[in-house]
């Protein structure tokens, strides 16, 4: 059990690092997906630990939420690229301070 949780924490950390370090907007979105996946893994692990269905049901709904967030994120990236030419966070320079 603790091994699974360690896996979840590790994935979460790696994903968070990806969001913070990478400048490619698409990669940042993918890293967020990794973080959400880590959270879903934790839900399933705890569900197993308690022998109840709750965690799994929450996980199923969370998967749907993750997918919806990606859709909006990708739409925004497309709109952004249309305006600025590349999916790059360094091209975000209109808003300062």
């Amino acid at each position, binding site marked *: 059990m603790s091994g699974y949780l360690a896996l979840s924490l590790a994935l979460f950390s790696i994903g968070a690092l990806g969001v913070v370090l990478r400048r490619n907007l698409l990669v940042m979105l993918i890293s967020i997906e990794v973080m959400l996946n880590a*959270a879903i893994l934790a839900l399933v692990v705890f569900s197993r630990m308690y022998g109840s269905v709750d965690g799994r049901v929450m996980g199923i709904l969370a998967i749907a*939420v993750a997918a919806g967030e990606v859709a909006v*994120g990708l739409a925004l990236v497309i709109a*952004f690229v249309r305006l600025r030419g590349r999916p790059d966070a360094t091209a975000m320079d*209109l*808003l300062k*301070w």
Partner: protein
Amino acid sequence: MLAPTFLTGPAPLELALAPLVLVITACVVLAAALFRRGSEEERLVTLLVALGGCAMAFLALLQLLDRPGEAFAGEIQADNFGVYTGLLATVATGLVLLGVLGHTRRYGAGWGEALSLMLLSLAGILLVCMAGGLLALFLGIEILSVAAYGLTALTRRRGRSVEGALRYLILGAMASAFLLMGIAFAYGATGTTSIAALAPAQKLAHLDLTALELLALGFLLVGLGFKIGAVPFHTWVPDAYEGAPTPITGFMASAVKVAAFAAILRLVYTPLGTAHLAGLQNVLGVLAALTMVLGNLVALVQTNFKRMLAYSSIAHTGYMLLGVISPAGGPGAVLFYLAAYVPAVIGAFMVLVIIGRDTEDLEELGDLRGLAREHPALGLAMVVFMLSFIGVPVTGGFTAKLAVFSAAVDNGYVLLAVLGIVMSVVSVAYYLNVVRLMYIPAAQRSWYRGPARIGERAILATAVVVLLVLGLVPGEVLEGALDAARPLELLALK
């Protein structure tokens, strides 16, 4: 198929009626926008429909006042705290909608989408306010966030709008991941998903799950810190506020903020949170201090009015966090603070909307130069809003700050309260700068022409009157707020 209600209180459907009405109205508005996209009259009609939806939601919520109940396996919990915050958010949304009543020409593109997203967002906010389960709370936050991303990017051909939305989305989605992780660990530590029952586990009592509890609270705190815009997690606030169209900014600064604080209050004041209250207070106290200082200092140097208000809203988040960490009287004070903050912030953004009605968005501080001489009524209203932000007596802002700071002092946070007062004094500089600019003479500017529309008059008058009432005779509202938050306090003081 629904379980029969075992309470004498309201029927299950009645509890969920307000969000339901909003979702249905949103669908109607969306369908109308899909099939008939065009004339200003049609836009006006859809706006009225949306306003009607808000009004019905308001009435549905009003029904539940002082009639607490829970339904749907405890996922909806309509206590007074939830109803109070829900009413506040509904009124805020209604005011914003009223404010754009005369602007059907100005905000042509994406009209139907904007209205329906706002209604859906409000439905999410109500779900947050009345959530009885962790998952429902999370989903409410997700609904309101995803709608807010879309609303921020409403002017999708404008680089700043898309950029602000994208920054908002990346940080917001990351915050959601933190929240979900926190919820997972909270479930792991307690074995339950109900907020009310979120107590350190009895089921596995022989095991030490403190580590899980701490991890859960840590993740939840980071996630909620993002959503309320507290300082190390605040960077999205100015970007989103500046990028969004001004009425939307008003919506985000008012209704969305109410939801964020409802969520943080609900989660801090659970058995799980109060079991680690001292630690939470330390962390949140530091965040509050940072938030107040940074928000006020950075607001000093802004030249863009929306951005300045964004930093000022961060500062107000800091003041309200003082209330969050003060179990005795604090939560009630936060509720009252929200009630006083919402009309002022909506009013301030609406002044911007009104003066830019016929032209481009006017959002630089310089655009306000000489405004009060040309439009005395607008100027006067703005003065009231600014004074309320500062916390000058007679306005609601004063009573609110008094309530929060005295709660903080009562709970032993004298130093933080003093810091808050000092920072309020600092804030005088930038708020009064606005007033100064409005009253100095200036060349003719491109403000709106013609008489003020009825919606505009109504919204400004409402905001001013509410602020004055809250400043002069706050008694009943303050009592109501304190009463509504009392169950939360009791949990902590037990």
